[in-house]
């Protein structure tokens, strides 16, 4: 049989749906936003139009987006996301390890528990967190019994980071699980046998050999964290605004699509920079299949 890639008809039949999808629902809207980011709202009869635009007028939106006000929010979004990603990593690593070393009977159940929250709507899960953390919530009630609190745990950075860690944890656990599961356990045994302690073995063998999973997990968590708006909106309120909220408001409340588009692209460039950094690091640690 011919290689299906060599047969043009077969190739295009198989590739067409995906290509169509990407083109119509990804490339075209993105292109539209890209054009929009260089545009301005049109002036009609001396007033700013709500629906009409002057296309490709210049880079004024980008100049506006590097205003310290927005840069501060972008920078804050980056460190909030980074912290959430780090917390995800240190929490998910032991979980993934535990699942890998659990008996075959328990593994599917444990993996199910990890993805179980996905079966519930994000909005409901987030409101549930509010019920847990509010002044009259379960945590404060429990602390109250012990004679502590109440503490303000809602509408601050803590609540946002906790919410992000909670929501994106499975994206960290699953890639980590996949690499740890594939890891030949005799590497760990060899390290122990050669005199390394459990701790040294973890640092010098386990972590480097599971780096592909760590990197994938970090990307899968960091990027959606950076663009999240629902979690900071509901849990952070006005005190813990992230760039996602600003963009959302440009498109909705402020009705300023050109500026929202420019901010979106700024965020995308930041993401690209992170991915390039990853590729650079991957090249340096060549030998481990990243």
């Amino acid at each position, binding site marked *: 049989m011919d290689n299906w890639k060599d047969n043009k008809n077969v190739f295009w039949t198989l590739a067409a749906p995906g290509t169509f999808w990407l083109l119509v629902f990804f490339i075209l809207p993105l292109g539209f936003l890209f054009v929009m980011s260089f545009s301005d709202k049109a002036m009609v009869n001396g007033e700013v139009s709500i629906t009409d635009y002057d296309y490709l007028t210049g880079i004024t939106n980008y100049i506006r987006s590097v205003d310290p006000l927005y840069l501060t929010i972008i920078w804050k979004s980056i460190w909030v996301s980074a912290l959430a990603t780090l917390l995800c990593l240190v929490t998910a690593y032991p979980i993934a390890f535990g699942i890998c070393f659990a008996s075959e009977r328990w593994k599917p159940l444990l993996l199910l528990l990890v993805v179980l929250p996905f079966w519930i709507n994000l909005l409901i899960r987030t409101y549930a967190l509010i019920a847990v953390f509010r002044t009259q919530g379960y945590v404060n009630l429990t602390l109250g019994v012990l004679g502590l609190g109440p503490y303000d745990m809602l509408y601050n950075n803590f609540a946002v980071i906790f919410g992000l860690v909670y929501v994106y944890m499975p994206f960290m656990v699953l890639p980590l699980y996949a690499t740890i599961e594939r890891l030949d356990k005799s590497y760990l045994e060899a390290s122990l*046998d050669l005199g*390394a302690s459990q701790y040294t073995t973890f640092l010098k063998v386990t972590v480097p050999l599971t780096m592909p999973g760590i990197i994938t997990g970090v990307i899968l968590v960091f990027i959606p964290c950076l663009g999240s708006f629902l979690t900071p909106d509901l849990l952070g309120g006005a005190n813990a605004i992230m760039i996602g909220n600003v963009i959302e408001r440009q498109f909705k409340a402020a009705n300023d699509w050109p500026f929202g588009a420019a901010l979106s692209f700024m965020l995308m460039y930041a993401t690209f920079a992170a991915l390039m950094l990853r590729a650079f690091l991957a090249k340096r640690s060549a*030998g*481990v299949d990243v």
Partner: protein
Amino acid sequence: MTDPIVSIRGVSKKFPGGVIAVDNVSIDIAPNEFFALLGPSGCGKTTLLRMISGLETLTEGQIVIGGQDMALTPPNKRPTNMVFQSYAVFPHMTVQDNVAYGLRVTGVPEVETKRRTADALEMVKLSHLAERKPDQMSGGQRQRVALARALVKRPKVLLLDEPLSALDAKLRDDMRMELTRLQETVGITFIIVTHDQDEALSMASRIAVIDKGAVQQIATPSELYEQPLTRFVADFIGKVNLIDAKVLGKTSKAITCEAKGLGKLNFNTDKACGDTVAIAVRPEKLKIAKIEPKAAGLIKVAGKVRDVAYYGDTSHVVVSIKGGPDLQVNVQNDSRTGGSGVERGQSIWVSWMPDDSLVLTE
């Protein structure tokens, strides 16, 4: 025997679910021995090796290495090092870093680490590949990295888990010689696990044959081959003809028995036995002749050639006899013409000296 370097005392391993992998095994291994644990796959030999290294816990018994009970000693503190079946050469480190790993993690000064690493690589003839990553190396080279990495630690005991099983036939022969040479040079006790009897016979100074978790016999290679204690050992080590026999009478020095297809026979043996025994005789000890051999005292039987397999230096002739099992006879092809000199279907006599056969009681 001098004080053993490794003393395995009444060791058992039961896995959850009731599987008994190792069943009350006791072995003493002397310093400087090349000791083989030989058995079919799943017999518990690897589990035993892993218990010596500390990677597996004991259910019962005691393992003493260099006079010290190892019960509470974790693998990273034991004076043993292991060459894993998969080699387990770290893929993210160069050959050099792999070999130096065991020294660096235990705080050996860097100057000494460098020197010993270079020496170890020299010993396994890999100095020219020190900067390579393992994925750029062949299986045989990776194995030598694993060897160097273990030997550089100067362990009291080197443990090798099926070290040759992943190599192709030619490389396996070279490596066999290499391992024997290394063992003589470094003067470390080697304990090797293998399912390949040729490997064990050709390399080891002593062999423990293990079946179903229990030791069947501990002996030198030639003892195992010529004086197997049990049917299992006789059958597992080399090729053997086993003929069931019913005991008719016995004295303290001999038995009389009725062997299947051979009739009434007398054998010298001082072993206690039940009602049935097996007569074991190696194929190369049997002789074939076209006419009935006349020499006195021979065990002889008439049969028909069922099959002849030509192996170059020898031919394996399978002879079927009336009322008994087929007998295999290995014939040296010592003339350039004629091969074994027999053909399928030919009537033939098989004979051997009674002392070349062995009475197996269990």
